[in-house]
C-alpha cells in the first residue's frame, strides 16, 4: 500500500511547549519514590537533558534557568497506553498534533496511538508517518499497529517489519480478533519480539447490537445491552491462549468484575497477562445514561458499582497494572444524535490524572503513590520499556503535578479537536502542572 500521507495542520502546537536552557534548576520539588512509597523534598538540577543532581542545590552560583515548583511533585513522565488520534483519516475529530497537545495538557509525555485509523495502521508507511511527526516534540509516540490487515481479523500484518519501524505492540482495538486461531498465531509470532498483543475483549456475537451495558438500566431505557459476559468470555479465552502459548497478553480497558477476577487468577498461576483500566470505568456507572447522554456511550460500556468496586480492588492488589485513557475523540455532529446512532468513545487525556486522584485516592482511599505509578511506571513496564525514574543519571522525562489542586473541568478549554466528555463541570482534585521531556518544557495550562 502506498498512501501519500501529508502532515496535517498542527494547530497552535508551537505555543504550548518550548525548549529549556541546557542547565535547568527545579527548586522546591517533591520527589517521591513510587516503589518505596517515600518522598524527598529537594531541588532537581538538569543538564543537557540529564538529571545531574537531586538535593539541595545552591541557586546563587547557578547559571541557567531556575523554576520554583513551590512543593509540586515530580514523577516519571506519564505514558498513556491507549489513545485514538484519528490521523490519518479523521482529522476532523483529532490530529496527531491536536491529540499530542491534549496529552501535554493532561501531563503525559508519552502516548500509544491505536491503529484504528483510516486506513488502518497496518503498514510501515503509516507507522513512519506517525513517528516522523513527533520527531521534535515533547511527546514520545509509541505506535501500536493492527494485528491483522485492515483490522479484519484474518491475515496477520508484517509484524517484524513493523517492530523495526518502531511499533511497540499490536492490537485490533475497536474489536477483538474473533478467530482464536488467528490470535494464537499473532501471540506466537509477537512472542519473538517480546512485545504485547493488546486485546479489546468483546465477543461480537454476544454483544451484537449493544449500545450500553446490559442490565437494569438497559431494560429501563429500552436500549440494547452488551452483557458483561461478552467481555468475560474473551478475556478468559485470551488468558488461556497466553497460558498455553506464552507471549505477552495485555487486556485493554478492563471493565467487568468477572474479567478482573479472571486476570487475578491468571496472574496467580503465573500467566503473562497485564491489564489496564480507563478513568471513566472507575468514575461512572451505567446510571450516567439515565438521560441518554451520548457522551457516556463508550465501548466497553459503563458498568455497575459492583464492577467499579472490583476494579478498585484490582487496582489496589495489582491485578490491574495501569490506567490508560482510551482517549476517543468524536465530533459534536456525530455525538449530538440519537443514542443508538452515536459513536462509542470519550475524551480522556486531560481528565485522567484528576479523575484518578479524585476517585481512587480521595473516594476509594488508594495510595497516591500507587495511583501515580499506574500512570507513570507500569505503562512502560507493560511495553518492556525503561521507566524514566527521577534518578541521577537518567534522561529527563517527567510530569510535574500538584496532587491537591482543585479545578473544574471545562470542555471548551480542551486542546482536543473534539468536546465529547461527560466530565464537563466536574470538580477534580489533582492537576498536572507541566512536563519536561528532553529539551522541551510544556505547561499544562498554557
Amino acid at each position, binding site marked *: 500500500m502506498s498512501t501519500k500521507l501529508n502532515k496535517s495542520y498542527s494547530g497552535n502546537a508551537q505555543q504550548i511547549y518550548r525548549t529549556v536552557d541546557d542547565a535547568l534548576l527545579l527548586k522546591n520539588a517533591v520527589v517521591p519514590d513510587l516503589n518505596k512509597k517515600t518522598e524527598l523534598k529537594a531541588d532537581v538540577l538538569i543538564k543537557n537533558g540529564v538529571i545531574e543532581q537531586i538535593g539541595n542545590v545552591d541557586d546563587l552560583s547557578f547559571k541557567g534557568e531556575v523554576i520554583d515548583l513551590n512543593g509540586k511533585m515530580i514523577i516519571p513522565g506519564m505514558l498513556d497506553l491507549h489513545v485514538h488520534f484519528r490521523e490519518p483519516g479523521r482529522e476532523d475529530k483529532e490530529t496527531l498534533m491536536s491529540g499530542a497537545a491534549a496529552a501535554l495538557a493532561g501531563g503525559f509525555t508519552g502516548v500509544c496511538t491505536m491503529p484504528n485509523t483510516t486506513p488502518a495502521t497496518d503498514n510501515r508507511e503509516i507507522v513512519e508517518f506517525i513517528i516522523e511527526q513527533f520527531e521534535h516534540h515533547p511527546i514520545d509516540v509509541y505506535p501500536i499497529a493492527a494485528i491483522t490487515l485492515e483490522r479484519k481479523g484474518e491475515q496477520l500484518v508484517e509484524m517484524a517489519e513493523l517492530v523495526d519501524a518502531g511499533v511497540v505492540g499490536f492490537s485490533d482495538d475497536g474489536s477483538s480478533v474473533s478467530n482464536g486461531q488467528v490470535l494464537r498465531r499473532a501471540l506466537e509470532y509477537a512472542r519473538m519480539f517480546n512485545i504485547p498483543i493488546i486485546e479489546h475483549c468483546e465477543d461480537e456475537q454476544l454483544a451484537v447490537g449493544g449500545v450500553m451495558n446490559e*442490565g437494569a438500566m438497559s431494560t429501563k431505557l*429500552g436500549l440494547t*445491552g452488551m*452483557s458483561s459476559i461478552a467481555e468475560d468470555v474473551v478475556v478468559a479465552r485470551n488468558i488461556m491462549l497466553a497460558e498455553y502459548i506464552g507471549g505477552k497478553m495485555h487486556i485493554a480497558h478492563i471493565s467487568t468484575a468477572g474479567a478482573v477476577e479472571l486476570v487475578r487468577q491468571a496472574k496467580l498461576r503465573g500467566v503473562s497477562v497485564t491489564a489496564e483500566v480507563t478513568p471513566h470505568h472507575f468514575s461512572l456507572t451505567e446510571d450516567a445514561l439515565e438521560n441518554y447522554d451520548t457522551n457516556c456511550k463508550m465501548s466497553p460500556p459503563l458498568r455497575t458499582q459492583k464492577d467499579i468496586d472490583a476494579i478498585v480492588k484490582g487496582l489496589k492488589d495489582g491485578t490491574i497494572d495501569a490506567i490508560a485513557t482510551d482517549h476517543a475523540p468524536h465530533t459534536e455532529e456525530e455525538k449530538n*444524535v*440519537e*443514542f*443508538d446512532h452515536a459513536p462509542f468513545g470519550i475524551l480522556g487525556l486531560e481528565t485522567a490524572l484528576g479523575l484518578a486522584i479524585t476517585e481512587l485516592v480521595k473516594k476509594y482511599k488508594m495510595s497516591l503513590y500507587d495511583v501515580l505509578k499506574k500512570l507513570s511506571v507500569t505503562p512502560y513496564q507493560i511495553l518492556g520499556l525503561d521507566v524514566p525514574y527521577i534518578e541521577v543519571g537518567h534522561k529527563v522525562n517527567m510530569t510535574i503535578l500538584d496532587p491537591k489542586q482543585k479545578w473544574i473541568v471545562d470542555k471548551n478549554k480542551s486542546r482536543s479537536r473534539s468536546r465529547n466528555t461527560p466530565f464537563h463541570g466536574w470538580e477534580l482534585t489533582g492537576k498536572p502542572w507541566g512536563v519536561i521531556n528532553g529539551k522541551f518544557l510544556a505547561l499544562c495550562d498554557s
Partner: protein
Amino acid sequence: MSLIRKHLLGLEGVEKDELNHIIQTATSFKEVLSRPFPKVPTLRGKTIVNLFFEASTRTRFSFELAEKRLSADTLNFSVSASAVKKGESLRDTAQNIEAMKVDMVVIRHAAAGAPHFLANCIKGSVINAGDGCHEHPTQALLDMMTLLEKFGDLQGLRVAIIGDVLHSRVARSNVYGLTKMGAEVALCGPSPLIPIRADQWPVKIMNNVDDAIFWADVLMVLRIQMERQQANFFPSLREYHNYFGITVDRLNRARKTLTIMHPGPINRGIELDSELADSEHSLILDQVTNGVAVRMAVLYLLSGEK
C-alpha cells in the same frame, strides 16, 4: 390538580393522581367525540407537529384526529428510515421545528431516547408517541382508561402482559402505569423475550402462558414480530403459537372469562386467535376509541404548561 410537567416522555415517575387526572380529562373529551359536531376550539391557534420517523398508521391517525378535534393547526412530518440515512438528522429537524415556532411536537422514533433528545433542543412540549423499545405513554394511558371503564378501579386487578416484553415499549409504559394505579402485573413470554433484570419492577415473571391465564383477570397480548425469530429469540412462529399464543382452546381449558387487550396491529392466529380478538371480551376497539380521547387530554393538559 394540574399536570406539572412540560413533556410527556414516559410514564416512569408519573404519579397516580397525575394518571387519574389525565384519564379523567380524557373522559370529558370522550363525550366531545360523541357529539354531532365532535370538535372543540380548545387548542385554536396552537401548532402541533407530528414527527414520525417510524412507520405508524394507528398512532399517527389517533394523534392527528385528536389534534383536529381540538382545533389545533397540525403539520405532519413523516420521515422514512431511508431519508434519515441520507442525512436528515433529528437535530436538523428539531432546529427547523424550532424556527417554525411550534407549540408541541408528537414524536415516534425507532431510537429509544429520541424524544428526550428533542426535548433538549426545542422550547415546545414533546409527547412521546413511541421510542424504540423504551416507552409509549399514551398507549398505556388509553389501556388504563379502557380498563377503568370496564372495572371501575384498577386496585388489585391482575393484568398479564404476554409476548415480546423485551422489545415492547407498550409493556414498559404499562408496567409503570398499571403498578402505580394499584394493579398487579405479570410479564409472560419466552425467557429470551423477558428483559434482563425485569425483576427490578414490581411484577411477577412467568414463562408458562397457562399459569398466566390462570392468574390473570386481563390478558394484554403483545404483537410478536417475525424478525425476532431470525435472531433466535424463539425457534419458530409455529412453536410460539403453540406455546405462547392465546387461543380459544387454551382459554376453554382455563374455564374462565378473561378480558383481552392488544395494542395492535394483531398477527391474527399467531399471538391471538381472531375469534378472541373479535369476541365480546375483547376491548381492542374500545382501546382505539379511547386512544383519541386520551391523546386529546394529553395535548390539552400539556398545552397549558408554560
